[in-house]
């Protein structure tokens, strides 16, 4: 509400909004225009120079593959005589999407809740922080790609290993952001609470924790995107059987691998479109919750520990 008021004021003070102002204020409009322009230029370039679909498909081809996969349960584009090695292409996009989404969302909740919890715990005692933190940081610096095969060995090919991998990558941003957030309280605020002889508990719940919320939500925003990457990574290393509907193996990651084996670049692009839509969608959900919870916080980017 307050933001709309402010917007109206600025436009009024400038004596009616000009076109450029309108565009900047409605960034989605700007995005829409630039996106259409991009598609047109892309389509035209690919057709004009007769670029092979295998090298770089035209947007129209990608759109067709996408629609076919979404509505006609026929995932492969068939370009270049794509062979269906694993029978994946007979499984609808929705089965693959739901698998990956399930893994990513479960991993997100698991990893971020544990990260948040450990962040809160570490801040209760300097000792715990000093002893455990080095291990956590060392672990974080390991390339996740190297850990992924281990997760398959430990937790199997089924969804469990993907969820844990997604959780692992979602965990760290929450841990770091929670810790930074809890330390962010200004001396003034601490003085205020001390002057009232607040107990540690009151200090924490009435001041420290709310203060950390903007940082924690910045952590969620990163974690939600990471968890999708984690799930895909897990599927790359070894996909599990379809859990509901569909035959054979399920997951966008394994589908992506399959398409690349069969040199189906158009199909690959279609999956990438789906993945980025999923990432954006999950990110938007987090942002929506954040807006509701943090209505009181000045809109600043508190992005840490990415």
């Amino acid at each position, binding site marked *: 509400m307050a933001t709309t008021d402010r917007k109206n004021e600025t436009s009024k003070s400038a004596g009616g909004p000009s076109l450029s102002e309108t565009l900047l204020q409605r960034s989605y409009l700007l995005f829409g225009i630039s996106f259409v322009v991009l598609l047109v230029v892309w389509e035209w370039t690919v057709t004009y120079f007769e670029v092979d679909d295998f090298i770089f498909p035209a947007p129209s081809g990608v759109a067709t593959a996408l629609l076919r996969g979404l509505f006609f349960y026929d995932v492969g584009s068939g370009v270049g005589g794509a062979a269906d090695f694993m029978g994946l292409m007979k499984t609808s996009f929705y089965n693959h999407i739901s698998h990956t989404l399930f893994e990513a969302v479960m991993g997100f909740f698991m990893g971020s809740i544990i990260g948040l919890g450990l962040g809160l715990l570490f801040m209760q005692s300097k000792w715990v922080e000093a002893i455990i933190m080095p291990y956590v940081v060392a672990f974080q610096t390991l390339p996740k790609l190297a850990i992924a095969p281990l997760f398959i060995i430990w937790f199997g090919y089924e969804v469990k290993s993907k969820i844990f991998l997604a959780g692992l990558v979602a965990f760290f941003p929450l841990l770091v952001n929670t810790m930074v957030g809890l330390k962010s309280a200004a001396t003034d*605020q601490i*003085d*205020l609470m*001390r*002057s*009232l002889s607040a107990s540690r508990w009151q200090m924490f719940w009435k001041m420290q924790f709310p203060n950390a*919320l903007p940082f924690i939500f910045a952590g969620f925003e990163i974690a939600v995107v990471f968890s999708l990457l984690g799930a895909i990574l897990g599927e790359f290393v070894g996909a599990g059987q379809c859990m509901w509907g569909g035959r054979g193996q399920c997951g966008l990651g394994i589908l992506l691998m399959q398409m690349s084996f069969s040199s189906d670049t158009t199909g690959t692009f279609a999956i990438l479109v789906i993945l980025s839509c999923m990432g954006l969608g999950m990110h938007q959900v987090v942002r929506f919750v954040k807006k509701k919870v943090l*209505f*009181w916080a000045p809109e600043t980017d508190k992005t840490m520990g990415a």
Partner: protein
Amino acid sequence: MDAYISVSNLEKEYVTASREIVHALTEINFEIAEGEFVSVVGPSGCGKSTLLKILGGLLSRTSGTCSLKNTPIDGPRNDVGIVFQDPVLLLWRNVLQNTMLPAEILGLDAKKTLPRAHDLIRLVGLEGFEDKYPHELSGGMRQRNAIIRALIHDPNVLLMDEPFGALDAMTREQMNLELQRIWLESKKTVFFITHSIPEAVFLGDRVIVMTPRPGRISEIITVDIPRPRSLSTMGDEMFVELTQKIRNLLYVEGSLD
């Protein structure tokens, strides 16, 4: 004089991160009687906030003694209300909730404190803004919110660090009158830091004049002007004389340019 707050031979040194020693206060000696209104003026950096935080039990002293009601000050106390130099409102609480914070923390009965909170909100002209959050308030409104927060638990002692610094001249005069009225009614003991010499004289029974590097008390001036004082008091011969005297003290010390 019956000393309610008593400070003697107070010294304060800060040790900075780079191990430098900043001598913030030296040879601070004064007493404040119960129900007395003492103003403090001095240039920026002369240690006023430091002194206030020591009195509030928020900062340790390097040497010397400080006592309140004959007990040494060695930590925060519930019968002291502090208005900080910045409002320090909790951003996730609205005006009413910020006002009620001390009552909540001290575990006071909400049935008694809630009506009081509404009275205070009315007193400082924030009615209608009870459910507004700090980011929806002007700087002056935030400061007024901070002032009534310090009053909600009805402390005997009020420590105020430039509470009206963020207000425009008109609101400031009004708040001065309000503060005088509150004080006359409640007879709280007030330690009031300000940058404004007229404000210090207008409100104070006495004015502590401080000079910097290191912060020390240059003189304590008694203001013998009868109460209640009104804005026209500022034109009185006595008032003008006292403000001039303080101004001279500050200039002679070479601390104001």
